[in-house]
């Protein structure tokens, strides 16, 4: 436990010193502001690009548009920024050789993985929540309608996906020897999940479906309990990937 505490502290210091935490937070804050802005601007952009010759009836943007943009930004860009930033978290440390000393002095190897996982998952969750609150505030201000009643419930699957993704990042980074291999592993796995989602009978269990239905949960069209399977599978996969990362780490030559 003590190992985990000290190593987590060291990890936090590292993400602060290397500016990774700062970048992640700034980018997610930008997404938080960008989402309602995009929702507001899209009709204007359409109008100006088609000119006045064609009479277009563009519906007024609603809070739904703002949330559609939010989930699009986070799931199509945000999560990959998390992956890019942390795909070398374990492999970088191993290749720099900075762990050799600590491990020979008695640092538990599983504490390394645990701390890495905790720090990545924590940052992901904080960044998403921050981005979410900003979008929520702007959306409430600019689009005061009742179209999106369940905004908090819709966020739950995304947060669970972040926990799963963090385990995937740590595992990918543990099995690979450099940051690009880890990046490639994580991105390929996500791509495979997307492919698997094409088959309808699998998609119910697929972790990737956790970031596909958020807007419809938000509108109340899908119930959260329809995703219980995907959530349980994701959490199980998280535990599995996490333990696998520890056993890979235990066998790894430092």
């Amino acid at each position, binding site marked *: 436990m003590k190992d985990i505490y000290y190593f987590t502290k060291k990890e936090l210091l590292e993400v602060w*010193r*290397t*500016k*990774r935490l*700062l*970048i992640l937070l*700034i*980018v997610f*804050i*930008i997404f938080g*502001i*960008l989402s*309602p*802005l995009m929702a*507001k*601007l899209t009709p*204007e952009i359409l109008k100006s690009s088609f000119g006045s010759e064609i009479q277009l009836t563009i519906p007024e943007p609603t809070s739904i548009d703002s949330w559609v943009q939010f989930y699009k930004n986070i799931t199509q860009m945000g999560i990959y*920024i998390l992956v*890019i*930033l942390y795909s070398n978290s374990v492999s970088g440390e191993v290749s*720099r050789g900075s762990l050799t000393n600590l491990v020979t002095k008695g640092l538990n190897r599983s504490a390394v993985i645990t701390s890495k996982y905790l720090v990545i998952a924590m940052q992901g969750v904080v960044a998403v929540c921050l981005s979410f609150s900003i979008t929520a505030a*702007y959306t409430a*201000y600019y689009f005061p309608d009742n179209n999106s009643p369940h905004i908090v419930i819709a966020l739950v699957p995304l947060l669970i996906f972040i926990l799963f993704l963090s385990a995937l990042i740590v595992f990918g980074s543990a099995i690979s020897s450099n940051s690009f291999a880890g990046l490639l592993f994580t991105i390929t796995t996500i791509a495979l999940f997307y492919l698997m989602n094409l088959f309808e009978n699998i998609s119910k269990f697929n972790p990737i479906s956790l970031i596909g239905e958020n807007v419809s949960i938000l509108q109340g069209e899908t119930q959260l309990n329809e995703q219980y399977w995907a959530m349980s599978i994701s959490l199980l996969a998280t535990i599995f990937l996490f333990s696998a990362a520890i056993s890979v780490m235990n066998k790894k030559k430092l």
Partner: protein
Amino acid sequence: MEIPEIVLDNLLLFIPLILLEVGLMITALIHVLKHPDYKFGNKLMWILIVVFIQIIGPIVYFVFGRGENE
């Protein structure tokens, strides 16, 4: 230069957005200037990337470009 009406209508959104982008750019620019050893590329290249590619530029620099030495 005339500010478009759409920007004036949404100042509450544009001002923080611009501040954050500029802040990110300046943080990266200072780092580029102060730490002249990069994993690859040279100073001019990184200055151009960081200044002209909004958001993505600084991220790419901090993840792939910065040297290991503090």
